[in-house]
């Protein structure tokens, strides 16, 4: 039974992920005194991509062709594991490490593929993505430990219920801020990366996937949107778990919180500009300090 629920959750999240991406894009447009693309624009884009053929450079190996599928599959896997309140699954193997490194596997293959085509932009994007990842990963683990310590375990359902029952504290607030910055970094947004740029020389994630087109790029975009939703859900579950007492069911609260975070992300992207690449370590060290403080304050 639980496997069926898991599959259902994957389908629901995969279907909704482009909508969340669309909400962010639209809100960003509104905040920047534009009209912004419609909420469903990402779906139309995906439909367009899936109607198109792949074009591969004759120099690429199987890694380049397989990477989009692996990337998408790891995003699906992460979506299967992330705790949602949609279904009570009674799972015991939803370990946070599995989820984080599932996403890491997808990124690893994309970085390999970025080198495969031999274009200079791909290599630059890949190396920058890995540079940022090296900084993000330890801080991410540290931040998640603040929740894991409270839960005495690394099972995600366990962590989610532990942080829900622990109430608002200084530690929780610090950890929430740290995770918000990490969400910005993980989803490739300003000030870390700029998802809207056409300037190849400045690209990170976009540079890495620049050689892809058609169905492959559709899978990558969809996978990215799904990964983004999973990251937002982690934020909701672990760092914003409290629901005001009221008649609304928890699921509705969760959806509202996802939307609020989407708007906050759009706001962060609008409010500032991209950082100089080599200033990023400073930002992430500060984030690491926040999570350390969160652990100390516990």
């Amino acid at each position, binding site marked *: 039974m639980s496997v069926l629920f898991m599959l259902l959750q994957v389908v629901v999240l995969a279907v909704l992920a482009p909508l969340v991406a669309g909400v962010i894009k639209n809100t960003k447009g509104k905040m920047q*005194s534009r009209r912004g693309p419609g909420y469903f624009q990402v779906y139309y884009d995906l439909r367009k991509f899936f109607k198109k053929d792949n074009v591969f450079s004759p120099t690429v190996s199987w890694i380049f062709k397989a990477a989009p599928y692996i990337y998408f599959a790891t995003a699906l896997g992460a979506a299967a594991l992330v705790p949602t309140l949609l279904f009570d699954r009674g799972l015991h193997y939803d370990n946070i490490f599995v989820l984080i490194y599932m996403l890491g596997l997808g990124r690893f293959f994309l970085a390999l593929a970025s080198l495969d085509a031999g274009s200079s932009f791909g290599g630059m994007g890949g190396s920058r993505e890995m540079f940022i990842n090296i900084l993000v990963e330890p801080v991410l683990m540290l931040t998640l430990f603040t929740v894991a310590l409270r839960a005495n375990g690394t099972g995600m359902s366990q962590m989610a219920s532990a942080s829900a029952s622990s109430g608002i504290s200084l530690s929780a607030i610090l950890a929430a801020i740290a995770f918000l910055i990490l969400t910005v970094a993980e989803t490739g947004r300003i*000030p870390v990366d700029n998802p809207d740029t056409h300037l190849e020389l400045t690209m990170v994630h976009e540079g890495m996937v620049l050689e892809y087109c058609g169905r492959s790029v559709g899978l990558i975009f969809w996978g990215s949107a799904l990964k983004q939703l999973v990251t937002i859900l982690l934020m909701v579950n672990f760092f914003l778990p409290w629901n005001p007492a009221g008649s609304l069911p928890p699921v509705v609260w969760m959806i509202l919180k996802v939307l609020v975070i989407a708007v906050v992300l759009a706001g962060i992207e609008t409010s500032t*500009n*991209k*950082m*100089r*690449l080599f200033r990023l370590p400073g930002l992430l060290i500060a984030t690491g300090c926040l999570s350390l403080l969160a652990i100390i304050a516990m």
Partner: protein
Amino acid sequence: MKEYKTIPAAELRETAYQLYADGKNGLMSMFANDERQLNGNYAIYCLFSVGKSMQVIKAVLKEKGKLEFPSITPKISGAAWYEREIYDMFGLKPVGHPDLRPFALHENWPQGIFPLRKDFNNKTPVPTAKKEFPMAGVEGEGVFQVPVGPIHAGIIEPGHFIFSQAGEDIIRLDAKLFFLHRGIEKAIEGAPIERAFYQVERISGICTVAHSLSYCQAIENIAGVTVPPRAQYLRALVSEMERLYNHVGDIGNLCAGMGFAVGIMAGARLKEDIMRVNEALTGHRFLRGMVVPGGVRLDINDQLSAEIRSMLDKLIPDFNEMIELFRGNDAYLNRVETTGIVPRQAALDLGVVGIGARASGVDVDIRRDFPYGCYSSLKFDVPIYTSGDVAARLWVRVDEVAQTVNLIREILEKMPKAKGPLKAAIPVIKPYSSGFGWCESPQGNNIHWLMVGENNTVYRLYARAAAYPNWPALTVAAPGNIIPDFPLINKSYELSYACVDR
């Protein structure tokens, strides 16, 4: 100015070095002309600014002699591009030039065909050649060559860049431009000067007024025509409108180099407001068709000048609000400050003009230094910054917007009443007389040299836009920065491809 100091080509180096006086004076422009039909010579003209005057050297090469001249690049770095172009277009070899790779004519252009010589017919097809076009780069362990372009992701013109990089750091940058060279200078040879005007005006969109103004002033200088006073003010008005929309748009565009969307949008919106007034003023958003040889085509009435004034009144608070977004914003300032520094000496050596020069502490503005039209009776300051970085180029633009807004108001106030026609007739010009026309375009000074042929036709036009001496500054600005900062550095110069692809 109509006096040229004529010397044999062999003496060019000494004479030019003397005038240059180790950098005390500047080389403003250098070009060649095929005058074999007139006197059996090729001529190379060098325009220097010497203190408060302009001086021209005319170096003459005998047709029958060796087609080479001593290069002046070894001491005057700013001549490097001019001499390479002369070599490409006329086959006159600058001996001792340190870098004589192909320039405007790429690897597909056959050897030994020189398009600006009079015996080259631009109607005959040219066979495709397979030469080499070597690009400069650095080799070594851990150094990579990153080719970028010629086709870019944005809707911009083609240019091929090669970065030699170690990690993210740029060690060297080389650029291959002129992919869309249109041969306009050749195409208008033989055309009546008043018709050729339309092609000259269309060299580049963002410098429409600058190119047409320089060209018209060259004609008027040669013909000795005085432009009616009101027309002079109207010309200054459209010049300043061009500067205004360019600067406001460029300041907004700079934000695209760092993904600051609010700034991009604010700049685009303000630029649009100005361009709508441009359209009301001239019927064209890029101010085309206003300046014509002898004067201007259109007058303005009180309603239009009120419209311009109210646009300015509305623009200033909005513009200042946009600038406040940058001034107090550490994240923004961190990106622009110390990025892409061009030291003052490098700017002087390369003969950088306009925004690029004024941001590196070089105090030049051709409107003030060599006034034309009504500029001698207008009051304005020339903002100078000394840090030479992206921020300095930004603040020069910001300060110039304020100056330009004041200038437009002053022009509207001082504009003399309409008396008679706004356009002086161009008389029949004595064949083969020549002269310069210049103006300050939004990016820097724009210099045209015209030689008129029989029956008021164009014998030779040389159009040097501000972008031409500024492009090489990029190769100084970029090294030492990281690759992701390059688009920002590039945008801070806002170099036009079309202006050099003339």
